């Protein structure tokens, strides 16, 4: 196992704006059916939690971005957003 501090990363993956999201549209319709008429738009996606070791937070961010680009998302159709926290900050 790699040395370093423990970090918690969260990766959010969603379809690019350019890509039609019929799942999001159906979820929005469902919310409207429940009376939540204020909802204008829903985009669906995926959420990943990673625990990893890295020498610094910057290194952890760089590594997780690479992972998101190479596997967790398909950049032809999806975009992603990465958040990294120190393990000590996670309750």
């Amino acid at each position, binding site marked *: 196992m790699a040395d370093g501090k423990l970090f918690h990363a969260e990766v959010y993956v969603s*379809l690019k704006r*350019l*890509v*039609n999201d*019929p*799942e999001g549209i*159906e979820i929005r319709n469902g919310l409207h059916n429940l009376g939540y008429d204020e909802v204008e738009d829903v985009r669906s996606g995926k959420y990943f939690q990673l625990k990893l070791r890295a020498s610094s937070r910057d290194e952890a961010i760089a590594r997780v971005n690479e992972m998101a680009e190479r*596997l*967790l998302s*398909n950049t*032809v*159709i999806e975009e992603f957003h990465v958040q990294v926290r120190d393990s000590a900050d996670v309750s």
Partner: protein
Amino acid sequence: MKFGVVTFPGSNGDHDALSAIELGLREEVAPIWHKERSVDGFDALIIPGGFSYGDYLRGGAIARFSPIMDAVAEFAAAGKPVLGMCNGFQILTEAGLLPGALLRNQSLRFSCKWVNVRVETDRTPFTQAIDPGTVLRLPIAHGEGRYFVDPETLEQLKARDQIVFRYTDAHGVETDEANPNGSLDNIAGVCNEAGNVVGLMPHPERAYDALLGGDDGLKILGSVLRQHARQVA
């Protein structure tokens, strides 16, 4: 000519492909387990349909890391014929061997029926024996078949003659009704720039005998034999 059919955990179209080649084409064929690392001795490769690795993450996303895929990529880079059908198409796009991606069907429903596709080009090994404009009747069975590329790549695909099949009605006319999954520009199949790697969502390997409802699939699978005959001669 010897065909190889790659089996991943979760493949379910591999035996259809083996039967289509053995019984339909009457050519030599053998299965290749995904843990193998060589495709030596094969003249054409088939990446079959199914749900490799349970479609975890995205269809085809995990299968591309199987040990055999390095050999498949080398085989493709050498200009040899590779055909991906359904999940095989998804695997080839995830592996970067074909452009684009396959998304959830527009209807959000799994779609299992016969469709018509028009052959758009005869420059690939799997369409070289078919006149462009020919309409083939083939079955589909997928939940994630909506083809997508960004607008710039779409223009590139058109300019480079990389669109191989389009969904049409029985007369070869592109209509929204004939498009079973909301694919961009009615695209049912594409090839790489060189033309030797082809992927499509329909299942030619499930249409190799009139008893199955049709045998148009043999036109695609058998097309590759013409090139092989030329090479041998």
